[in-house]
């Protein structure tokens, strides 16, 4: 929020202070506009009933991007290994169903969160002393080494052919999965809403404010005695757990998982989506993942071979003309309209 906070500062200091105070008091409250993406997601269910398989994939990626936003956008932790936690969550429910017969989906999500969170805690404790390119490479190497380890034990992981034919119980023993993916979509949407609520609470808590402080000026946070490392590890653990849930949903909606979930491509793609949507903005994850995936879907239908050109062009244009991501563009537009209304 730091960027938009400063943007609201007008000329007069007193009025400015009051406005800033008002902003701080109100910012955690739900804004009417926040209902829009959710209404949109529900509308999609009724308008495109044949496209729910794709829709659920978008929801999974939104959740994954949201977890990255928590550490990248709010705490300023740049990572290229976030797919590690997505993959661990994916394999937790995958192996659970394939080897242990744990086929109940909702408890599977919790199990994935716990396992991924645990790995996040351990690796975070070691790695979060580093920053910048070093951290980037360390997280990247961690994810790839997990993948290599999985390939070494392909008797367990199924290797690059994966764990086929996973079956999960119907939700609450009642709602079974259908070919059209309607159940998946609702299931993923509800899960996303719960996760979003948690993330929103964290972001607007004192803990969230401390994270933003670390992102903006880590020295000052050290100086005022904030336990920086502990806070970073905490948020990293939470983000890892959420990425794990996204991974678990991915396995459940696909009824299948292979080692490619740990790919560098997966880490890079979610980061690109988030930056495209706008970091540190909660809904940036929604917008970025949705726009990227819908555009990719459309372009790859128009031209299965050359669609990457269009995606590339979008990214370049976004950097040149929407510096704070698509959410930044929307904020600017909102501010412009507000200004026009009150001369």
């Amino acid at each position: 929020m730091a960027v938009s906070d400063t943007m609201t500062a007008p000329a007069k200091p007193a009025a400015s202070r009051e406005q800033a105070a008002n902003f701080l008091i109100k910012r955690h409250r739900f804004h009417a506009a926040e209902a829009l993406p959710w209404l949109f997601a529900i509308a999609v269910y009724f308008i495109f009933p044949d496209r729910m398989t794709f829709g659920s994939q978008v929801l999974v990626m939104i959740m994954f991007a949201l977890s990255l936003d928590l550490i990248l956008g709010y705490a300023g932790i740049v990572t290229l290994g976030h797919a590690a936690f997505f993959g661990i969550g994916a394999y937790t429910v995958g192996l659970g169903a394939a080897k242990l017969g744990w086929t109940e989906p909702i408890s599977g999500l919790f199990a994935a969160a716990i396992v991924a969170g645990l790995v996040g805690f351990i690796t975070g404790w070691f790695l979060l002393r580093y920053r910048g390119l070093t951290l980037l490479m360390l997280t990247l190497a961690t994810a790839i080494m997990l993948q290599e380890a999985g390939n070494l034990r392909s008797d367990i992981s199924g290797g690059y052919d994966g764990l086929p034919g996973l079956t999960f119980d119907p939700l609450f023993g009642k709602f079974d999965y259908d070919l059209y993916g309607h159940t998946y979509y609702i299931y993923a949407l509800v899960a996303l809403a719960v996760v979003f609520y948690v993330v929103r609470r964290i972001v607007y808590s004192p803990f969230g404010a401390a994270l933003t402080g670390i992102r903006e000026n880590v020295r000052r946070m050290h100086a005022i005695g904030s336990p920086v490392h502990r806070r970073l590890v905490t948020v990293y653990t939470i983000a890892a757990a959420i990425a794990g849930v996204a991974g678990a949903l991915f396995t459940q909606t696909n009824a299948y998982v292979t080692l490619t979930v740990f790919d560098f491509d997966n880490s890079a793609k979610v980061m690109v989506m988030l930056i495209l949507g706008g970091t540190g903005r909660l809904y940036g994850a929604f917008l970025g993942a949705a726009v990227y995936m819908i555009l990719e879907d459309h372009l790859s239908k128009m031209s299965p071979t050359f669609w990457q050109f269009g995606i590339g062009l979008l990214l370049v244009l976004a950097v040149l003309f929407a510096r704070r991501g698509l959410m930044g563009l929307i904020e600017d537009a909102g501010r412009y309209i507000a200004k026009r209304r009150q001369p």
Partner: protein
Amino acid sequence: MPHVANIAVSILFDGLAYAMFLFITSVGLSVTMGLMNFVNLAHGAFAMAGGYIVVTLTRTLGIDFVPSLIIASVLVGLISIPFERGLYRRLYKATDLEQVLLTIGLAFMAIATFTYFYGPIPKSVPLPNWLQGDINLGFRAFPSYRAFLIVLGVILIAVLWYVFERTNIGAKIRAAVDNRRMAESVGINVDRLFTLTFAVGSGLAALGGGLAIQLFGLTPYFAVLYLVLFLIVVAVGGLGSLKGTLLAALVLGVFDTAGKYLFADAGGFFIYAVTVVVLLIKPAGFYGRE
């Protein structure tokens, strides 16, 4: 020759050749990231472009492999200048994340563009006779192409070292890496320096791309396929350091080769394990500044 010594010689020789490829391709990236503080993920795209220019020069125009390499490097260096002036320059003060987005976008566009012109089928280049087969050094024979890689690498290192350490331009570059503001205030035109080093770095990437065809084959996807490898070399070596990049390329090249030779089952592990160990001990890489 005894068996163990034979193995050691094999590993050192192959590792050295591989290291030279890593060095040539990554050194430009290291300088860009160190000097300009710019995360250039399109570096691989310049390497890929260099590779395809070599393919066209050798296959279509019938020019020899070595002159083609030189022409391709110069061409890509020149082509990179408008990119630096028009696009990269606008983002020098932007965050890393925006630079990532821009350069990944460029890499995607490059992949699609080269697929359009060259198709997705892997390309190879015709080599002159003296680069095929092997050369006998008396006690054993070595593949000629790899020997060529090593010789070329050594020459390039000597030239780069001379330019970097012994010329006026090199002194300016080092000054700008150390303290950009100070360099500007003593009258160094840092902007022009940026353009120059960027062009040279991209030209070297193109050279690396041309050399890689024989090792890996060339598809448009080359633009991103080996990017992680180049980033690792840069991170392990330390940003902006010639010495560091060389040392990192040598260590990673030899360790990777040794790992593949001795422990093929876990071969993929080695390069990452070395990376993690080095970075845990020296977070800024071998010769990076903390």
